[in-house]
């Protein structure tokens, strides 16, 4: 049984082209700037409900997204703006969902991070942690029944979700069925405010893999190249028939649980530790040191991303809000079975 612990990555095996780390970095940057915009819109009172950022987790998230093919399955969690963009979610979908546009994928029925296109393999999360894992299992299970081979599915979780029964049931189920599932755990040290010391007692969450009979991978989640390498490897293992893969990335969320939370409970010592490194800066340093790019390129990409985000926000702010009088107000697709419509 494979259990790998990655040191600093070289990104040597990432992607099909030498430009893969650049592609990943630019997506991370867009995700970071998009999150910054949502935080600003939230402060300006333009967003109803919660705002959940992926700051500090973009390297891990983007590594997931760029490791997947369009035909794969992806169940992101709340800090996966980067992974979503990398998987192909249009940036404007995030804006529309946060702003409740009637034109967004959820049409105002659900908001913020609860968005997706199930039939296209992007599963919209429910809030109950661990619940998406078995749904990914189901898609993979059904595809195997239909004779579709070669695809994999990713479910993203935080370390808090590893305490749920749903996590246990689903990982065990995937192992029993030998499904090509990659379970990516962002161990960001705090589940909302609860520290790891109150969440689990094992030395490493990756140790749990042994109990399920699945392979595991541990990686420094602040290490851009390490994340790319590890996710590429885990996805490849799942795709080539080695069953479920548990990936545990250690990092720190560089923001509150949501924008309503100042994260005062995170001790300064952790923020100043290697866990508190900003993966975006780590990525820039990596790209410069390995001569992928010159420093002058970063500002241009940043400005380009800001223009894209501002244009999307400006467009969505002009779009119609959902109209309660146009709503069908039914939760079932079989209209003939609506209450009061018995034939």
């Amino acid at each position, binding site marked *: 049984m494979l259990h790998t612990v990655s040191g600093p990555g070289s990104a040597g095996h990432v992607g099909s082209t030498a430009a893969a780390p650049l592609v990943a970095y630019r997506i991370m940057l867009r995700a970071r700037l998009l999150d910054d915009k949502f935080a600003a819109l939230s402060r300006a009172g333009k967003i109803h409900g919660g705002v959940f950022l992926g700051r500090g987790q973009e390297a891990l998230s983007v590594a997931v997204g760029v490791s997947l093919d369009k035909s794969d399955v992806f169940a992101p969690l709340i800090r996966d703006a980067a992974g979503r963009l990398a998987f192909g979610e249009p940036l404007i979908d995030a804006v529309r969902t946060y702003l409740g546009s009637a034109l967004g*994928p*959820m049409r105002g*029925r*659900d908001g913020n991070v*609860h968005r*997706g*296109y*199930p*039939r296209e393999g992007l*599963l*919209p999360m*429910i809030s*109950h942690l661990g*619940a*998406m*894992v*078995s*749904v*990914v*299992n*189901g*898609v*993979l*299970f*059904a*595809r195997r*029944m*239909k004779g579709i081979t070669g695809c994999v599915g990713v479910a993203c979780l935080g370390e808090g979700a590893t305490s749920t*029964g*749903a996590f246990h*049931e*689903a990982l*065990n*189920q995937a192992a*029993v069925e030998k499904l090509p599932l990659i379970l990516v755990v962002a161990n960001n040290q705090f589940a909302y405010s609860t520290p790891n010391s109150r969440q689990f007692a094992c030395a490493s969450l990756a140790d749990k893999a042994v109990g399920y009979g699945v392979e595991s991978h541990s990686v420094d989640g602040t290490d851009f190249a390490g994340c790319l390498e590890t996710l590429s490897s885990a996805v490849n293992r799942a795709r080539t028939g080695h069953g479920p893969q548990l990936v545990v990335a250690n990092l720190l969320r560089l923001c509150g649980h949501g924008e309503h939370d100042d994260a005062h409970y995170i001790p300064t010592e952790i923020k100043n530790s290697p866990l508190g490194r900003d993966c975006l800066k780590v990525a820039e340093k990596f790209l410069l040191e390995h001569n992928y790019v010159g420093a002058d390129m970063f500002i241009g990409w940043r400005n380009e991303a800001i223009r894209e985000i501002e244009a999307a926000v400006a467009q969505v702010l002009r779009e119609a809000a959902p109209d309660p009088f146009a709503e069908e107000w*039914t*939760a*079932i*697709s*079989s209209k*003939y*079975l*609506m*209450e*009061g*419509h*018995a*034939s």
Partner: protein
Amino acid sequence: MSITYLEAIREAQAHALRDDPRVFIYGQDVGAFGGAFKATKNLAREFPGRVLDSPISEDAMVGLAVGAAIEGLRPIIEMQFADFSTVGFNQIVNQAATLFWRTQVSCPITVRLPFGGTSGSGPFHSQSLEAIYAHYPGLIVLTPATVEDAYSMLLAAVAIDDPVIFCEHKLLYYHLKSEKLPSEALPVGKARIAREGRDLTIVTYSAMVHEALAAAAELATEGWEIEVVDLRSIKPLDTDTVIASVARTGRLLCVGEAWPWGGVTAEVVARVTAEGYGLLDAPPQRLNAKDTPVPYHPNLWAAHRPTSRSVAAAARNLLRT
């Protein structure tokens, strides 16, 4: 040749597996063993790779079904007992039931719940949970009372594009028999007049239909003509048929095996009172199980649930009002 309620459920699943390649069955012990009640007897052999044992993981069973439904399949999930569906409750009510509303992608899963009390089964193998599921938007809840309905409504459930909670009563499994399977059936969502009468309407469903019919037969010897409405479907609930019956009789008694707080009987009374108040000659009444867990001992169990005797007594009281 006769066929039982349980065999009808088995035959409906065989029919669905035979006719629709999208159908598969997933649940504990449903494979080679044929299920705890034998509702999937021999199906794993007849349909290789499509009737599969699951781990004891109700949450993941339903989650897997939702994923498979997204991918276009039509899973049937067997909960070994309805009571254990509470472990998969989150996936049913939050994942499956909300999927279409959130995404416009329908979720055609059928969750079979062997439910209701049988003597000696005790608190954790006897529960009636239909009202809890009916409370949530996005679910269809079916409660067949006859062999014919068990068959035709299970076939309908698999064909419905939304999640269906199929409540099959364990007490009816073995002793309820019919000569043959039906070739046609009332549509899902339509209640059935199980017995016609003019003095009082009993609205009920599932195993309680048979207690109500027995009570009606007893009361007939006393000169009363009791109408029995079998709801068949809890959600949607066929209010029209119920109110039409109350319009004929002027008296309503709702009988359910579930617990008394809220629930199907309360819903029926609320609807009739709100929409048919002027039709009532007496205050509508309810008869439910007692407000305790379902007891183990036959003496206690028989007193916990409504029976033909207690239904007849409640009807007599209402007829005298």
